[in-house]
C-alpha cells in the first residue's frame, strides 16, 4: 500500500453547491388517443404545459439529488435522494402511471353507490341484445382508464462501515375503471367496473459486509386493500326467479409477509465462491365472504364459514457455488427449491347458478400447492485465449397437489462455444435439448374435473424441446462500425398429447448496426423478426381429436436513429424512427373443412425529431416533433357494437386506429456550474 498522505488531489474539481437543469415546455397533441396516451399521459388532444429537470446540492457533508419528469402530465414523476454518503441516505419518489385502455367504449350502466351499477330508468329487458328497445338512446360514453400512483420512501443507515440498515416503503394506489363481466346463464354484460385499491409494501433489511462476504437478513411485507368487496349490477336481460341483480367478487384484501436470510463468501482457494438464500413467507386472506346470491327469493344453505381464513406458506431456498479447480476450468453449481403449501381450509360449498337456483351439488375448494426443485451444473473450459467451451446439465422436478400430474421431471443438457479471435469479433453459439417426463397423467382425475381424458395440459405434458442460440458481434478494425446479430430458437414437441397443445416453435432474430463517424456523429440501425407458432388439437365429440388449430404470431421491427452533436457549434439534432408490425394468423381444420381467421394486425410507426439549440452555456431551446400512428385489425373488436353479440352486451370497444403529432417547444436553464458537454453516453431511444 503506497503512502498517500501527500496525495492532496488539488486539481480534483470536487463540486459544491447547487446545480441543475430545468426545462419548461409547451406541447401540442393533435388527436385523442387512448393507446398512444397509455403510460405516457398524452391521451387527449390539446395543449399541455410540462416541466422537467434534475439537480443536485453537493457539499462535503451532505449530498442531495432530485429529478422531475412530466410534471404537467398524468405520468408525472418526482424523486429526491440525499444524505451523507457513507453514513446515511434517504430517498423519496412519487410516480403516476396512467392506464388508458379504451376511449371508444359505451355502456348503459351508471354507478349507483359503492361498486354497484344500475340500468337506465325505463330500461326494458329482453333475451337478446338486438331486442333491447332503448339501447341506442341509453348508451353513454365511458372511458376504460385508471391511474396508478406510486409513492416510495426509504432510508439507509450505516452505524458501522460494514453494517447497513435499510428500510423501504412503497404504496401503490389504483383508481379508475376496468372491464368486468356480469354473466347470467349464457348471457353476459361487460361492465365498467370501478377500481379503488392500494398495496403497501414494506422492506427492512440489515446487511453485514466483510472483506470477502456478506450476510443479509430481511423482512418483506405486502398488504393489499380493496375498497370494493364486489361489483353489483342490474341485469339488462330477462331473468327468472327474481334474479334481477348479480354480484361479482372483487379481489379480496390480502397480505404476504416473508423473512429471508442470504449471504455469500469468496474464497482464495480455486477462486471459489458460495451464495445462499433462504426465505419463508406466508400469504393470507381473510376477507368477509359474500353470500351465495343476491336473490332474496332463494333459500340457500348457510355458508360453511363467513371468512375463508386462507393461508399459503411459501418456502424458497437457493444455493450457488462456483470454483476454478484448474486454471482454465470453471465449474458452477446452482440449486433452488420452492414450495407452496396451501393450508386454506377445505369446505363444501353449494353454488347458486346465476342467482337463479341452487346447483344442489356440493363442491370443495381445491387448495393447490407444489414443490419444485432445480439443480444445474455448468462447466466452462478455456481451450485457448480465443476459445471457451462450456456445457451444462439441469434437472427440474415438480411435485403438485390436486392436479392431473403429480410428479414431473425435466432434464436438459446444453453445450456452447464462445469464440473471440480478437477484440473485434465475438461469437457465442449454444444448443441443447430438454426432455420433460411425467409419472403419469391421471385421466380419472381429469375426468372427474369434467375434462376429456385425452387432453394433456401443456405445462403438465410430456415435452421434448430443442433449443439453440447464436450471438455474433463484430466491429471494424479501422472504421468505427459495430454490428450484432442475435438469434434464439426453440422447438417443442408434445408427442404424447392427443389433445391440447401438440407443438410449438419460437424463432427470434435481431440485428443492430452502429456507426460512429466521429464522437459527434452517431448512426444506428436495428431490425428484429420473431416467429412464434403453435399447434393444438381439440375434440367436440369428447373423444379423439376432431379439430386442429394453428396459431402463428409474426413480428417485424425496424428502427433507425442518428445523433448529430454540434451540427452547428450550438445545435444538436437527434432523430429516431421505429416501425413495428405484429401479425397473428389463426387457421383451423374441422370436419367441415379448413378455415382461417382474418389476420390480427398491429402496426406502429413512430418518428421523433429533437433539436437542441444551446443559446448560451446556461440556456437551451428544445424543439421536439413526434409523429406516431398505430393501426390495429382485430376481428374480436371490429364491427362489434354493444348489440352485435346476441348474448353479450359489450362495450363496443373499437380497434385502435390513431395517427397524431406531438409538437413541443421548450426552454432549459442551467443553474450552477456550466454543464460538462459530452460526459453522457448517448443511447438511442428506439
Amino acid at each position, binding site marked *: 500500500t503506497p503512502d*498517500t498522505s501527500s*496525495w492532496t*488531489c488539488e486539481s480534483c*474539481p470536487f*463540486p459544491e453547491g447547487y446545480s441543475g437543469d430545468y426545462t419548461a415546455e409547451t406541447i401540442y397533441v393533435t388527436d385523442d388517443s387512448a393507446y398512444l396516451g397509455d*403510460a*405516457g399521459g398524452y391521451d387527449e388532444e390539446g395543449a399541455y404545459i410540462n416541466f422537467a429537470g434534475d439537480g*443536485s446540492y453537493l457539499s462535503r457533508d451532505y449530498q442531495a439529488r432530485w*429529478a422531475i419528469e412530466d410534471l404537467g402530465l398524468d405520468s408525472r414523476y418526482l424523486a429526491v435522494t440525499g444524505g451523507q*454518503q*457513507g453514513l446515511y441516505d434517504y430517498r423519496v419518489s412519487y*410516480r403516476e402511471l396512467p392506464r388508458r385502455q379504451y376511449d371508444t367504449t359505451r355502456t348503459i350502466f351508471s354507478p349507483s353507490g359503492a361498486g354497484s351499477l344500475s340500468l337506465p330508468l325505463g330500461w326494458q329487458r329482453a333475451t337478446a341484445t338486438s331486442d333491447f328497445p332503448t339501447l341506442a338512446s341509453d348508451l353513454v360514453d365511458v372511458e376504460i382508464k385508471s391511474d396508478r400512483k406510486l409513492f416510495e420512501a426509504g432510508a439507509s443507515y450505516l452505524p458501522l462501515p460494514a453494517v447497513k440498515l435499510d428500510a423501504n416503503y412503497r404504496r401503490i394506489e389504483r383508481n379508475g375503471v376496468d372491464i368486468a363481466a356480469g*354473466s347470467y346463464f349464457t348471457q353476459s354484460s361487460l361492465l365498467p367496473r370501478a377500481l379503488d385499491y392500494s398495496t403497501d409494501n414494506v422492506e427492512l433489511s440489515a446487511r453485514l*459486509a466483510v472483506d470477502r*462476504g*456478506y450476510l443479509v437478513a430481511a423482512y418483506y411485507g405486502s398488504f393489499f386493500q380493496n375498497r370494493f368487496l364486489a361489483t353489483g349490477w342490474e341485469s339488462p336481460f330477462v331473468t327468472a326467479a327474481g334474479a334481477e341483480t348479480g354480484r*361479482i367478487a372483487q379481489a*379480496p384484501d390480502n397480505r*404476504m409477509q*416473508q423473512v*429471508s436470510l442470504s449471504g455469500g463468501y469468496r474464497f482464495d482457494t480455486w477462486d471459489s*465462491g458460495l*451464495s445462499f*438464500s433462504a426465505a419463508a413467507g406466508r400469504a393470507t386472506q381473510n376477507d368477509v365472504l359474500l353470500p351465495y346470491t343476491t336473490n332474496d327469493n332463494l333459500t340457500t344453505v348457510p355458508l360453511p364459514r363467513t371468512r*375463508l381464513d*386462507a393461508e399459503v406458506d*411459501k418456502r424458497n431456498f437457493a444455493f450457488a457455488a462456483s470454483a476454478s479447480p484448474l486454471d482454465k476450468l470453471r465449474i458452477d*453449481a446452482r440449486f433452488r427449491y420452492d414450495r407452496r403449501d*396451501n393450508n386454506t381450509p377445505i369446505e363444501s360449498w353449494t*353454488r347458486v*347458478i346465476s342467482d337463479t337456483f341452487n346447483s344442489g351439488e356440493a*363442491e370443495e375448494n381445491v*387448495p*393447490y400447492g*407444489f414443490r419444485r426443485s*432445480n439443480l444445474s451444473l455448468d462447466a466452462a473450459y478455456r481451450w485457448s485465449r480465443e476459445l471457451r467451451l462450456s456445457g451444462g446439465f439441469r434437472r427440474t422436478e415438480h411435485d403438485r397437489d390436486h392436479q392431473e400430474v403429480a410428479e414431473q421431471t425435466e432434464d436438459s443438457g446444453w453445450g456452447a462455444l464462445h469464440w473471440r479471435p480478437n477484440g473485434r469479433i465475438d461469437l457465442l453459439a449454444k444448443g441443447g435439448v430438454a426432455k420433460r417426463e411425467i409419472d403419469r397423467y391421471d385421466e380419472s382425475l381429469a375426468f372427474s374435473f369434467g*375434462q376429456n381424458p385425452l*387432453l394433456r395440459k401443456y405445462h403438465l405434458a410430456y415435452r421434448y424441446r430443442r433449443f439453440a442460440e447464436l450471438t455474433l458481434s463484430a466491429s471494424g478494425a479501422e472504421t468505427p462500425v459495430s454490428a450484432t446479430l442475435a438469434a434464439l430458437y426453440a422447438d417443442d414437441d408434445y408427442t404424447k398429447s392427443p389433445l*391440447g397443445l401438440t407443438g410449438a416453435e419460437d424463432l427470434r432474430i435481431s440485428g443492430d448496426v452502429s456507426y460512429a463517424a466521429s464522437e459527434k456523429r452517431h448512426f444506428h440501425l436495428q431490425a*428484429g423478426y420473431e416467429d412464434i407458432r403453435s399447434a393444438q388439437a*381439440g375434440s*367436440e365429440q*369428447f373423444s379423439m381429436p376432431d379439430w386442429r388449430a394453428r396459431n402463428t*404470431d409474426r*413480428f417485424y*421491427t425496424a428502427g433507425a436513429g442518428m445523433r448529430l452533436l454540434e451540427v452547428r457549434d450550438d445545435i444538436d439534432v437527434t432523430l429516431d424512427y421505429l416501425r413495428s408490425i405484429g401479425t*397473428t394468423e389463426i387457421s383451423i381444420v374441422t370436419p367441415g373443412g379448413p*378455415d382461417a*381467421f*382474418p389476420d*390480427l394486425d398491429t402496426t*406502429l410507426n413512430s418518428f421523433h425529431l429533437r433539436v437542441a439549440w444551446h443559446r448560451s452555456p446556461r440556456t437551451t431551446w428544445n424543439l421536439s416533433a413526434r409523429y406516431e400512428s398505430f393501426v390495429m385489425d382485430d376481428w*374480436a*373488436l371490429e364491427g362489434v357494437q354493444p348489440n352485435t353479440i346476441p348474448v353479450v352486451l*359489450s362495450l363496443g370497444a373499437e380497434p385502435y386506429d390513431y395517427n397524431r403529432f406531438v409538437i413541443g417547444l421548450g426552454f432549459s436553464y442551467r443553474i450552477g456550474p456550466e454543464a*460538462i458537454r459530452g460526459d*453522457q*453516453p448517448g443511447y*438511442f*431511444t428506439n
Partner: protein
Amino acid sequence: DVPYSRDGADTCLACHSGPEVLGLFRTPHAVPTDARTPFGHGQLQCEACHGPGGGHTARVRRGEERPSVVRFGRDADTAASVQNGMCTGCHEADTGFGWHTGPHARNDVACADCHRSHTTEDAVLHASTQPAVCFDCHTTTRSETRKAFTHPIAEGKMECGGCHSPHGATIDEQLKRQTVNDTCYECHAEKRGPWLWEHAPVTEDCTLCHAPHGSNHPGMLTRRAPLLCQGCHSERGHPSIAQTPGGLPGGAMPSQFLLATGCLNCHEQVHGSNHPSGSRLMR
C-alpha cells in the same frame, strides 16, 4: 510489483482532464468525506479502480509503448474478470445472490459494460434510460417490448430492474423476487389471493398465459382466447367446440366465445374468485 503514481489523481488529471473524466467528481465515487470511496481520505483515488499507475505515468522512451492500467468497458483490453475484480473488491456485497454463477458473469459481462462511473448520471440507474443500456445486448428483448401490448418500458416509465435483478438472483430469469409470481405481485397484488377458488396455473407461473415482454394480444397473453384457454380446457360443451370464422360479425351467429373479451365475456375471474358461487370463475 507495479508501483503507484507519485501524486495520485493529480498525476492522472495532468493528462486526463476531458469531459469523459471530470464527470466522475459529481458521482458517489468521488466523495472525500466517505472513507470507503476511491477519493475518501487515504484512499487510492484513480488507482483504486485502475490499479497501480506508476508504470503508466513514468517517462517512457521514444517508440516504447506506455504500460497500460486496468481499463474498463466493452472495448477495453483488460479482461472482464479483471475489471469486475476491481469493482467487486468494494462492491461484493452489492452483487446479490450468485453473481459469480449468474449469466452475466458466465458470459464475461463486465460491470462497466452497463455502468458508467465517470459520467454525472449513470444511465443504467434511471428508469427512462436503463432499458436502452440493457437492450444494447438484449436486442431480441428490445424487439419484444415493441409489440402492441407490453409493459411501459419503451415509454421510459418502467425499467428492466423493476422485475429483474441483473446482479444476481436465485432464479434463472434473474428476477427480483423468489419466484415469477412473487415478482408480478409486487405491482399486481390484487392477483395474489389466496382465493377461495384458485385457477391452478395461476398459482404456479403467470408466464404460462402471459408474455411479460410483449405480445400481439391484449393483456399480454401468449395466444388469443379461446385457443389459449382450450389448451387446458376440454370439458363437454362450449369449451371443446372449435370456434371458426363463422362466429365473426356478419356470420350467422356472432360468437360470444370469440368476440369482445372471448372466454372472459363470462369467465372474467381467471385469476381466481373469492365468491362462494364462483367455482366456475364467473362470480
